[in-house]
């Protein structure tokens, strides 16, 4: 046998597709499938939330915050009493609210399913008057009224199922993480603004004016704005403080709430009670 040097065709082992075209087609195709699914999930969560009565919710989530876990901070009763006073202005309030205090330095407030509002001791130390605290509590009551926390729960549950399905198949390990981190953003900006508006309404109903509503936010670090703060706040889905203050002023002006008034001071023993 003799050797004949010949060069074989080089295009058999590569597909004649342009990579950018393929990328565009695949992304469009996948989006076309994922978008309806996402909408279906959103609709399902909305319907589910509408049909869950508050009494049932309180029973199911009673164990989430047993009384013993609410914290031994002596200011807890005052916070719970304030929540009670504000909730009296909410017609048709189905919850029997309880309050808890978390011993943490960062100021924060949470709404837990079942009718529990938790504030951190850092927040209690940071408020300058009873009105400021009342606005924060009213804002959390707003989340309860719109049942925002249930929506977040529903979203998380669905994403956990999707994540589990993908994990068993071993595909796309980074994808579920990014998606669930998006879900953990918490309440959306619109939900936060709606809760702010409700908080203003309760403040006005209790005190006759809304002075002090914005006071807490002027003391938060990114109230000055700046480009960096603007960009990161878009990602964080919590409206940035200066924007939030403006929104509060707009709402108050639209509803003709008085923005000036005497604010009720905190009890003299407020700071000492923490120690």
């Amino acid at each position, binding site marked *: *046998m*003799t*050797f004949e*040097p010949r*060069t074989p065709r*080089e295009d058999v*082992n*590569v*597909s004649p*597709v342009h*990579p*950018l075209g*393929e*990328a565009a087609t*695949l*992304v469009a*195709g*996948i989006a076309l499938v994922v978008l309806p699914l996402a909408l279906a999930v959103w609709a399902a969560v909305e319907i589910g939330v509408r049909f869950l009565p508050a009494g049932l919710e309180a029973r199911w989530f009673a164990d989430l915050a047993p009384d013993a876990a609410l914290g031994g901070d002596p200011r807890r009763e005052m916070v719970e009493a304030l929540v009670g006073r504000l909730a009296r202005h909410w017609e048709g309030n189905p919850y029997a609210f309880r309050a808890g205090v978390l011993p943490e330095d960062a100021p924060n407030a949470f709404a837990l399913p079942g009718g529990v509002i938790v504030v951190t001791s850092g927040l209690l130390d940071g408020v300058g008057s009873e009105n400021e605290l009342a606005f924060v509590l009213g804002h959390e009551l707003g989340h309860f009224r719109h049942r925002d926390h249930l929506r977040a729960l529903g979203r998380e549950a669905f994403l956990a199922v999707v994540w589990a399905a993908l994990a068993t198949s*071993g*595909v*796309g*390990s*980074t*994808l579920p993480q990014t998606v669930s981190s998006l879900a953990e953003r918490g309440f959306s900006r619109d939900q936060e603004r709606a809760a702010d508006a409700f908080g203003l309404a309760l403040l006005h109903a209790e005190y006759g004016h809304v002075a002090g509503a914005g006071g807490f936010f002027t003391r938060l670090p990114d109230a000055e704005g700046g480009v960096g703060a*603007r*960009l990161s706040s*878009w*990602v964080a889905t919590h409206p940035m403080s200066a924007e939030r203050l403006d929104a509060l002023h707009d709402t108050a002006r639209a509803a003709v709430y008085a923005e000036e008034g005497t604010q009720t001071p905190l009890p003299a023993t407020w700071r000492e009670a923490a120690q």
Partner: protein
Amino acid sequence: MESWIGLGIQVGIPVGLLLLAYAVGSAVEGRHYRSLRARELRSRSFPVLTLRAPPADWRIEGIELVSGSVVVSLDYFKRFLAGLRLLVGGRIASYETLLDRARREAVLRVKEDAFARGCHAVINLRLETARLNRTLGSEGGTAGVEIVAYGTALKLARRSF
């Protein structure tokens, strides 16, 4: 207004990186293919076979074990395309050019190794592929693919082909 800028940056940076990876990747690929074609043309007359037994009329004076290997890395754009393909199924075209190049390069290196040792032909060529995993970051990610080609190179008394 700011939310559009934020959105633009959130979407724009990954897309920009992808396009950059695509541009650089196809430039590198183009250069490699040109080099491969040139070297394959030059070494056309160097026979490489997968047969175990050489032709009967060859007079063999010596043998050597030769090998050539190459490790190619997967660029960001190729991995992105493969990730999309894994959802819908089908042929992963982005990896085909990678493996084609790597294989041709490995065979060329075998030829060059044999030529450097004064041999005239290679028989019993075998090709093996291995995947290298990333150690840093997410487990299971592929850092690169190694292709090794090896065979027996023959020193012939005189070129009888």
